[in-house]
């Protein structure tokens, strides 16, 4: 039932966006100007292609995000289970151990200057 409810919500949201797009392409002014179709680069003629190389730092950020986010996702069920756990001392030391490993990884990342942006 909840999923049916969510499906209705999702479909209505999609329809809404599609209808809005449809309205403007139906009602919008039609005109074909060659210059308008060009790539916008502050008014000068476009140079080169857009799919060029970008800074490796962006990819490093994404990979490191994956690493840390997975560790935090592991903590979510831990946080939910803590209150009802039979042995909270074990839970607490497990958490501390886990965070210590995370800390070692974090210090390594900072020391290797993977996240230093200024040149």
């Amino acid at each position, binding site marked *: 039932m909840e999923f049916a409810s969510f499906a209705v919500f*999702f479909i209505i949201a999609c329809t809404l966006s599609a209808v809005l797009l449809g309205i403007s392409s139906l009602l919008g002014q039609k005109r074909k100007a060659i210059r308008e179709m*060009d*790539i916008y680069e502050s008014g000068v003629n476009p140079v080169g292609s857009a799919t060029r190389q970008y800074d490796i730092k962006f990819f490093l950020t994404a990979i490191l*995000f994956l690493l840390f986010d997975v560790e*935090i996702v592991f903590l979510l069920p831990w946080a939910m289970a803590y209150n009802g756990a039979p042995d*909270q001392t074990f839970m607490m030391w497990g958490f501390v151990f886990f965070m210590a490993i995370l800390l070692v990884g974090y210090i390594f990342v900072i020391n290797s200057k993977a996240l230093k942006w200024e040149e």
Partner: protein
Amino acid sequence: MLEAIIEILLKTAVILALPLGALPIIIHVERRGAAFIQKRLGPNRVGPLGLLQPLADVAKFMFKEEVHPSHVRPFFYTAAPVVALVVAILPLACIPIFAPIEIFGRSVYPEVFKSDMGIFFAFAASALGSYGILLAGWASNNKYSMLGAIRACAQMVSYELSLSTSLVAMIFLYGSNDIHVMVAEQTGYWFGFLPKWGFFLQPVAAMLFLIGIFAESNRLPFDLAEGESEIVAGYHIEYSSMKFALFFMAEYIHMIALSALFIIMFFGGYSLLPGMELIADRIPASLAILQALSLIIKVASMIWFFVWVRWSFPRFRYDQLMNLGWERLLPIGIANLIVTVLFVYFRNH
């Protein structure tokens, strides 16, 4: 069965109508607020006090020429605004605007998508927001768009870490991931006057979360994705007419959803504002309406805070932004989590 269908449709209508109806008001408040802060007049010509300006804008967006440049990747170019808007709307499905009530013997939940994992779903859906932006940037096949999209994406994932650490801390403290339990924990008063809001329990987590939602919704001082002085408009530079409007709406709805999450975790969600108990005690039937009103007032104050910050602070530089996220907020968030856990453990043992 019929009742269930009516309930679903009614809830969907309310949850969609509230933010979409509030959008023109928010945009108007943003413009007038900007003018007020900068000692300008702002839009004041269309209708009384300029209140009809948003309607005029909608009409303009509809009748504008839809430029479909020849160099874009057509399918993704059209799909990106739709993805952005739908994904911005999704978290709203899990946000309750009042406590479960009984109407005609049926117990009615206010959320469209009632789930134990509601708050995780809302977080996951709001994190998907980067897909709309990334798709738009890549499909536009423009250097500014691409740069804006990559920047926005790196920024959003970086600040998501500090958001998640404060989420873990709050779930740990409330002992549950159910939004209704979280709100129930925050109902009542300490010492008879201080509301039991999570903000007073975890001010550090609240500040991290607040900074995180500014970065997540790409608002100033974190609007590097569309820094006008560097990359003109960022990911939506090649978009015009209603396609651009969809990105615009997505940004504001994303703001509303993130503010609602912030309110639920740190400012008591739909728990009554101080003073409202007097009315609720007299007329018990008005409880749900008062709760919805409380949530709306709290979210509206957050939106005004967004506007206020936007027109008061300059933009960060990109390296400052990334350093703040990774070298300040993430360690602070993790330290806050460890201190919280140790404090709770040693208090109980």
